[in-house]
């Protein structure tokens, strides 16, 4: 046993640059920010709606402006990345055993995508 083991410091703010898999993890975490921001935007929209038709109309106009569209697009891409990165790891967190065998992971992931598609469809239909 040596009297002075050498300790390698981990860079506290840049550790995730060390490996692509850490970058992927950070991407998953950072994209959640956009989901939060979009939710806040919806809350602001509700508030504008409560203030009356004029306020709501100006909110909608702002959303239709280039900045509004850009934000919605970025938020959409981020939300899709975030959601799919979680869907893809669900078999690890929720394995389902039937008898001796485990249900194939692809099926569990597929079920998530299927439910996602159905819910999106319902929301779209209700929106029209």
């Amino acid at each position, binding site marked *: *046993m*040596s*009297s*002075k*083991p*050498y*300790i*390698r410091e*981990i860079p*506290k703010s840049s*550790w*995730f640059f*060390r*490996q692509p*898999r*850490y970058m992927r*993890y950070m991407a998953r*975490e950072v994209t959640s920010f956009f989901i939060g921001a979009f939710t806040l935007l919806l809350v602001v929209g509700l508030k504008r709606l409560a203030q009356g038709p004029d306020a709501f109309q100006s909110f909608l106009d702002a959303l239709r402006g280039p900045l509004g569209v850009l934000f919605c697009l970025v938020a959409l891409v981020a939300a899709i990345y975030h959601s799919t990165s979680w869907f893809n*790891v669900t*078999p*690890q*967190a*929720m*394995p389902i*055993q039937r*008898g*001796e*065998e*485990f249900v194939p992971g692809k099926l569990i992931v597929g079920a998530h995508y299927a439910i996602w598609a159905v819910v999106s469809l319902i929301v779209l239909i209700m929106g029209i």
Partner: protein
Amino acid sequence: MSEERQIQLEVLRYNPETDLEPRFQTYSVPCVNEWVVLDALNYVKENLDPTLSYRWSCHMAVCGSCGYMINGEPKLGCKAFIHEYGDHIRVEPLAHFPIERDLVTVVEDFITKFSSVKPYLIPKEDKPISAGEFKQTPAQLMKFKQYTLCINCMLCYAACPQYGLVPEFLGPAAISMAHRYNQDSRDGGRDQRQEVIASHEGVWECSFVGACSEVCPKHVDPAGALQQVKVASTIDWYKEHLMPWSKK
């Protein structure tokens, strides 16, 4: 005929008696393509530099002692084939562990944490030997079999950024092993283990980076085990707080 290749093997050296910090030393090693990185290290030790220190034993991915960072990736030296690499291979001690000497790391922290989760069967009730064995169906065995494949190589600790940043974290292998026994139909020790693994330094320090499962040479999937422990611990919490009348 096996093809021979001259490999530049760059090894991180550290001698606690003379060095203030580690430094790289490069050896030129004639490697056969069927070799693994551990063979190249053995070649150096036997032919070029007997002072090189590193751990290994079985040379067949069973003992778990030959974990190194190979080109920055946690790998078993005896499972990292030379033909998968270019002519330059860099070998360092496992990340996140203090360096004892050269490629040898200080592993006491891991051993203490591993022992703290009581990684052994705690039978539900004492049974005299004459009463026979504890029986288990194949389905009950399958529930935890993959976790029994862990060889304690600590690659998962070297991959886990959370362990690197928060050294108190119990870590992937220890919690997976607790999960292995908790899933065992013969075991009754879950409550004792939960105290350790459901704590803040336990499973809640994990942010599911998933790196542990990607590097695990035995496909134990520690990340999966940890998420399952989170789910089970959350259910415990709800039961305890919302349904105090229900027994766990």
